[in-house]
């Protein structure tokens, strides 16, 4: 059955589907129960699946993560919500020192099939610790998967995949586009692959690589380039760890030119890793330096300035044009 829904509704739909499919799936987090979560991602779950499977927790993120690891190691499939990505830092000790290395540490005896969901990114007039994008911190931890959807249909398929996955998955939801558009989403229970990019638009002149909410501006830039007769390929990275370097390389080896767009600070960002892969393995095909359009190396500003911080369509266009005119 097809639903015409936003991304946050697609997250809710995938959670419902996963909870129907397996009694082992348990949702926990702050306000996820009767309140339905601050963004309403877990709305109705408590009514449908009861308090034993939809758990309101205290405001203690380290405990949420630790509880999830225990559940996962003993056979449940916890899907924990961290209310904002800015609150994920207390979980890092649990995530980094236990979840990410449980399989390695126990020589394969235990694994940690948990999902940690967190909304992230700016553009919603929230304080700075509700607006940052720290996916690179998490992507740097071996043993974790870090997945970022950018449309309702992909959020549905990727969340199902994250729940099926035997590894711990950090599932980061770009909240700026939580309700930005509605798509027809088929509630068919089919998961998307977890370790691949998605080519959103096929092109031949330049490759635009992005993920999360910035996909919106990236597609707008591709549209404007098309009106100038420039054929841009748009790739949604989707899995920032592990990276699907094959797809990225294939595209850039075709176009020879590339702009990477992300909201997070520039230095040490996932864009830097992608740039390094392209330089290491795609150097011979590059016709222009790899360009990056990113946030700044500063603390995310308060909301009156956040539009100056976030890359916009014009920034992407200017960078693309510089790249295209390089010879």
């Amino acid at each position, binding site marked *: 059955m097809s639903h015409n829904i936003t991304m946050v509704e697609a997250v809710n739909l995938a959670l419902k589907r996963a909870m129907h499919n397996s009694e082992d799936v348990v949702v926990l987090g702050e306000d996820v129960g009767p309140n339905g979560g*601050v963004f309403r991602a877990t709305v109705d779950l408590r009514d449908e699946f009861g308090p034993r499977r939809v758990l309101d927790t205290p405001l203690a993120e380290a405990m949420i993560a630790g509880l999830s690891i225990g559940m996962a190691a003993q056979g449940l499939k916890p899907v924990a919500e961290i209310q904002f990505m800015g609150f994920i830092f207390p979980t890092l000790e649990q995530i980094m020192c236990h979840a990410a290395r449980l399989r390695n540490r126990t020589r394969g005896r235990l694994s940690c099939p948990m999902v940690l969901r967190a909304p992230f990114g700016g553009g919603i007039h*929230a304080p700075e610790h509700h607006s940052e994008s720290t996916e690179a911190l998490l992507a740097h931890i071996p043993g974790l998967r870090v997945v970022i959807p950018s449309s309702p249909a992909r959020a549905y398929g990727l969340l199902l995949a994250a729940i099926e996955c035997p590894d711990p998955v950090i599932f980061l939801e770009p909240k700026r586009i939580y309700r930005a*558009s509605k798509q027809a989403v088929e509630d068919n229970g089919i998961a998307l*692959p977890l370790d691949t*990019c*998605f080519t959103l638009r*096929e092109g031949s002149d330049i490759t635009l690589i992005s993920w999360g909410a910035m996909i919106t501006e990236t597609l707008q830039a591709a549209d404007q380039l098309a009106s100038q007769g420039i054929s841009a*390929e748009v790739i949604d990275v989707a899995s920032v760890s592990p990276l*699907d370097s094959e797809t990225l390389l*294939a595209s850039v080896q075709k176009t020879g030119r590339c702009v990477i767009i992300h909201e997070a600070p520039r230095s040490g960002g996932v864009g830097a890793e992608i740039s390094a892969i392209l330089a290491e393995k795609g150097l011979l095909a590059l016709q222009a330096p790899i360009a990056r359009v990113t946030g700044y190396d500063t603390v995310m500003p308060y909301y009156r300035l956040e539009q100056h911080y976030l890359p916009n369509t014009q920034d992407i266009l200017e960078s693309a044009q510089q790249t295209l005119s390089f010879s």
Partner: protein
Amino acid sequence: MKYFKLPDLGEGLPEADILEWHIQEGDQVTTDQVLVSVETAKAIIEIPSPQDGEIAHLFGQAGDTIHTGEPLIEFANEEQEDTGTVVGEISAAEPGTSKDSFIIGAAPSSRNHQQVQATPAVRALAQRLQVDLNSISGTGQSGHITPDDVQKAADMNRLHGPVEPLKGVRKQMARTMSQSHAEVVPVTLFEDADLHSWPADSDITMRLIQAIAYACAEVPILNSWFDGQSMALRQHEATHLGVAVDTDKGLFVPVLRDIGTRTTDDLRTGLECLRTDVRNRTIPASELQGATITLSNFGTLAGRYATPIIVPPQVAILGAGVVREHPVAVNGQLEIHRLMPLSLTFDHRVATGGEAARFLAALIKQLEQPFDEQL
């Protein structure tokens, strides 16, 4: 709504100063009634009420600065709507829907692409020496272009002038012919057709087309496609004839469809259309695809016999040379007849010599009929 917030007043202005309230707390207002006058950096603007209701509270007094998105008025007796967050604002979807479309992994065009391989330093060198990297092939380990390759190309350019990379039809011809040479095992049979019985005004091309249709019906294996990779043969019921057309831009082979079932007039008109389209460069790509056998009639130019090259996946091509008067022996007597030299190339991976010979025999038998007995 419970709170009416300062809307975006256009042109990206972030704030406005309150000049004057036109209503007071406790007033009943109606939709579009002016609530307040504000001054922006550009203009004085009157802000109308978005709804009917009772004013519970005014935020700010004359002279205060209000930022876009901050509350301006609180309406009484209204529930605050659920915006789905405790912090910040999530912008809501426009009405309507879209369908997600994406390719999992790389686009097909990325998987098949071949790009010039050169380091940035080599690209810079090529630019400095004015060498087009597309026009040279690399001798590096992975086929990449080395500084030496660029230097050699630059030397050649200096001594012999620049090269011109092939484009369009010529590039396609080079590719197709190389492919044919690499794959096909060609054998060519030569024979003359005696045109002595023809009326004077016979249309040579039409006679050839009809004879090919006849021969294809007699020996169908030459009217087929062969895939050398999978070793699979596809035999065709209909005969679609590729007709080689020479132009100054290069060789075009438009396809005359279904020659076995059409009248001479229909075929003649069809062929003329194709030729005109080729000359005007208006021929659609679809008209250049799908030939099952090819005719190259170079008899209008020069040359007697040739070894025509098969275009895979086809397995046969017929060449027709210049018609000439030639002495022939008829019942022990010398006579001068008009002869048309024919060259049939077939792919020996597919057809036997016997099949090809029977095809050529059928073709000549049909060609030597007087025109009236043709169909």
